[in-house]
């Protein structure tokens, strides 16, 4: 990661032309080759940038960043105030707050939210193509596979459909019904799920966590 603070002017020549007049700015040259020009505002969004693959050609007083489409970012440097390079090492990746795993755990503890008299068989129930989030038995003892998502979209329904297909080949489990549980379910996903006989359940994370909303309610 190379940081340059410089007084510069930037011209972009490509599908359109854009011009940034002479001013003090932060230039980031990242290990992937990308170059971005930041001002002292707008959080993560650069004023202009070139995504990799691209090449930086450094001439005194003028840098040219070019990609294979021939688009150019021409940076005219008047004064370089800072230029340093740091090795950041490997990025461990963004860890989301684990809501999905948490939902799975919470729902496993409160299976009855899916239906009266339901019980949990196990979490992460194995199938040949990966584990399904929850395997439950309903009040009548029939198997139900539950796929849990934070945001329920078509992909999740497809995933559950594949699990169900494989689970239903097991004579000890079949028939296995499906429940698609998510904090929010997209209308398309709902339509697809219901068409396949999969029940959709919208989960209330706060309620599962036992944080009842403090709103007054009739019951």
């Amino acid at each position, binding site marked *: 990661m190379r940081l340059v603070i410089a007084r510069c002017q930037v011209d972009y020549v490509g599908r359109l032309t854009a011009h940034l007049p002479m001013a003090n700015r932060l230039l980031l040259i990242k290990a992937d080759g990308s170059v971005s020009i930041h001002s002292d505002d707008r959080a993560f969004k650069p004023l202009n940038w070139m995504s990799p693959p691209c090449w930086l050609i450094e001439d005194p007083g003028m840098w040219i960043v070019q990609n294979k489409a021939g688009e150019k970012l021409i940076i005219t440097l008047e004064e370089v105030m800072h230029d340093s390079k740091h090795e950041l090492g490997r990025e461990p990746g963004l860890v989301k707050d684990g809501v999905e795993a948490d939902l799975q755990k919470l729902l496993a503890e409160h299976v009855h939210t899916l239906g009266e008299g339901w019980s949990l068989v196990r979490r992460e129930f194995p199938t040949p193509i990966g584990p399904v989030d929850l395997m439950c038995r309903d009040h009548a003892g029939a198997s139900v596979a539950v796929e849990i998502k934070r945001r329920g979209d078509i992909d999740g329904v497809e995933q559950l459909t594949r699990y169900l297909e494989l689970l239903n080949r097991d004579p000890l489990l079949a028939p296995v019904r499906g429940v698609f549980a998510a904090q929010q379910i997209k209308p398309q996903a709902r339509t*697809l799920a*219901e*068409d396949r006989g999969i029940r959709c359940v*919208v989960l*209330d994370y706060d309620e599962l966590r036992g944080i009842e909303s403090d*709103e*007054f*309610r*009739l*019951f």
Partner: protein
Amino acid sequence: MKIRVERDGLADAVAWVARSLPSRPPVPVLGGVMLDAGSSDGDGGDSLTVSGFDYEVSATVGVPATVADGGKALVSGRLLADITKALPNHPVEIAVDGSRMTITCGSAKFSLPTMPVEDYPALPNMPQLAGELAGEIFGEAVAQVAVAAGKDDTLPMLTGVRLEIGEGKLTLVATDRFRLAMREFAWEPNETLSETAVLVPAKTLADAAKTLGGAGNKVELSLAANDGLLGLSGNGRRTTTRLLDADFPKYRQLLPSEHSAAAIIEVDSLVQAIKRVSLVAERGTQVRLEFVDGGLRLSAGGDDEGSAEEELPVEYTGEPVTIAFNPTYLLEGVHAVRTPKAHLSFTTPSRPALLKPVDDDGGVAPGYLYLLMPVRLPG
């Protein structure tokens, strides 16, 4: 099929059928409208039947038509509704040739692809007749109650209106946990019908009651509780809907038996005042009602955003009290009493309040109530 039909009748019929069609049909034919010419058995001379069905709701309506050549055709409901609505005021000629339907009206001409009739599901038969209701009474009662039904389907039982058929009366109830609306009225059901209660999807029921219950019309209610089907017909239109298979909460115990304070408020001025002050209540947070002897001060907002207040004269009995409500829920309740004045009674700012209609003599009119949970006052 080759028919000629009046534009207005056709447009109304198609629009009414198409409104109950799903916006995202899982199978394309379920988004279709079936036109059936000449095969209805001549009840009332309707010779074109327009119908739609998506396994949840079915709708059928007859339109007088001149049939040159009978037959059935299935076309996209939404498209047909848009087309018929936009047609000029001339007789409409509809002809089906092969897999295309031609619609000619004045100088406008449309050609639509048809869908295979064989793939279309059979519409459910009307269940057994449960009784007749005056259209306007039924329409009003459903509108008064359906307003309190839940909109999101996290809890399916809250998205329905409960219909209780009792001895000599019909009770309609709906609740979304924040409010509960109940309407009761005298009704003589069909003798063969025993006391029963069913849960009908609120949106479907509200739509049907509104369109079937025109002035002076009779609405026929028919019920097959075991098959989970409710039928409504009137005004030449028939609709069926699947019942919700869920337990409605035990609501009778929620109804307060007593109150310590009550106000009689003029509905119009209250509605206007709520609308004005709640302009500063961001996203409908709360509107506060401060009752003092002989007056009501409405206020909303706070120091951070804007604030507003307005005073109204009211007949108030009880200790001075401040109680806050969600302005939308309060407005819907005040609208739903359907009388010029409303009776609001409550005990404490954290217990449910009760809105009831007021009759011409200034007394509480029986038959309707709107139970509303207050919202927490700041601090």
